[in-house]
């Protein structure tokens, strides 16, 4: 047996033994639920739903241990560790987790789109009577079909024609519509919010006086840096003039200022990435292994 295999076997046994003690002593991963019974007074039909309760309430009346949700916590822990296993090296467990992620995430978006948009908007507006009798019972009975919805439905079907072996060009019509809306919306929004208003926000007084008429050095320096700094950075991006002489010096300052910008971006990115890891570690240590109690 290879030495590394031996090490992994020993580590797995130790981890298994440790997990067993966490389960026995601290009920690691255990989830408790409380029932809520809903009854329809007319038909007498009742339905029970279950909501998760804090561990502290596990001995309260009606509260039960939930096998399905406890299993869920263990499945979550498995997938978390499976993805982390990539840090040691590429392996089959990671690849399985990755494959499940790809499949589940695509299906998740489709399901949400189906119920929120296809059924909720299309079917709800095109066939209100059917919707009322099935998935939208609260829909008013006097709603009439909105036939205008047939237009986006037709475009949608043309859009999906792309998946057919022949006639894929049909999907170009709705695609053109799609691209045009993006282009039209973004042209206006970027021009207004990211160009006009940004220039307006940079038009600042270079010499600032306080309310009592005294010279405000700090605000003056701040504004001057903002105005000339922005211009220096823009000069760096302005390629119609050769970056030599005065333009070269200004663009050089622009590069330095941009480096400070990227430094800020890097630091904030670091903070961001560590936060995500902290979130996962918090799950493993607290929700799964119940360190420091649970809520």
């Amino acid at each position, binding site marked *: 047996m290879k030495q590394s295999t031996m090490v992994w076997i020993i580590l797995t046994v130790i981890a298994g033994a440790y997990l067993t003690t966490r389960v026995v002593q601290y009920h690691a991963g255990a989830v408790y639920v409380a029932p809520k019974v809903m009854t329809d007074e007319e038909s007498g039909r009742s339905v029970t739903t279950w909501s998760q309760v804090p561990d502290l309430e596990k001995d309260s009346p009606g509260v039960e241990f939930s096998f399905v949700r406890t299993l869920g916590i263990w499945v979550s822990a498995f997938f978390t560790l499976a993805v982390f296993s990539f840090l040691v090296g590429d392996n089959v467990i990671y690849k399985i987790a990755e494959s499940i992620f790809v499949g589940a995430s695509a299906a998740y978006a489709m399901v949400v789109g189906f119920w929120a948009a296809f059924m909720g908007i299309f079917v709800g507006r095109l066939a209100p009577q059917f919707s009322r009798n099935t998935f939208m019972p609260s829909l008013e009975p006097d709603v009439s079909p909105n036939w205008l919805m047939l237009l986006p439905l037709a475009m949608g079907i043309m859009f999906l024609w792309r998946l057919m072996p022949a006639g894929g*060009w049909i999907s170009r019509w709705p695609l053109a519509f799609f691209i045009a809306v993006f*282009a039209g919306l973004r042209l206006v929004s970027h021009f207004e919010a990211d160009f006009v208003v940004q220039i307006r926000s940079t038009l600042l007084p270079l010499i600032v006086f306080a309310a009592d008429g005294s010279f405000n050095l700090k605000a003056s320096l701040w504004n001057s840096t903002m105005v000339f700094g922005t211009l220096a950075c823009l000069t760096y991006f302005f390629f119609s003039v050769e970056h030599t002489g005065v333009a070269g010096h200004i663009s050089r300052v622009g590069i330095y200022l941009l480096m400070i910008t990227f430094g800020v971006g890097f630091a904030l990115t670091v903070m961001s990435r560590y936060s995500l890891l902290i979130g996962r570690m918090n799950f493993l240590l607290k929700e799964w292994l119940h360190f420091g109690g649970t809520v």
Partner: protein
Amino acid sequence: MKRLVPIVIASIVGFVLILAKFIPPIQSWEENVVLWFDILAVFAFVLGGGNLILNHLKKISDRQAGWGFSVITLVAFLGTLTVGLLKIGVPPNEKYLDYVWSGDYQAEGSAFWWVFSYVYVPLASTMFATLAFYISSAAFRAFRANNIEASLLLMTALLVLVAQTSSGPMLTDFIPDDSSYAIFKVENIKGMLVNLFNTLGTRAIMIGIALGVVSTSLKVLLGVDQSYLGGD
């Protein structure tokens, strides 16, 4: 026909959206166009799902390397899709208990909710969480002060990193807030770096991108750029 009609559609739709900004009476046209766009967006998901199925089925039928993982992807895809579309385990709306399809598709306790909470959430969040490890590794290997630009970037990053802790600002707590040296307090240095230097640099980039978006959009709407139509 194959190219002219899409170009005409793109021009008309795009200019309706632009003109609606300036001519209020055609705002209702704009609203309808955007509504259809919003609805059409859901078909993008279907298209994505369809492509995923086709690609992985091809991989499986060709017995390409790693085809077994394609089987797992398809099983996860179809499993999630089935429990979500069929609302498995979804209780009916509490006001309409006789309507079995009336419940929220992601109601707590349903199969789809389970998949989201216990499969999707850990996988998605851990995939991104692993980036933290690579940041540590890259910081050791690549974050080097070998010239003025890199040194500026590095010093700024270090200052902001210190300021983004609880103890960082305490390092300069001895400087009174109302003193003329208050600008050297860690939190004030960070404030200046983020709110002034970062803002001006980002603003310049933003203005450049805005001009790029405007010109790219105009090219599409005027039919100059037809790359989105593909070949043929």
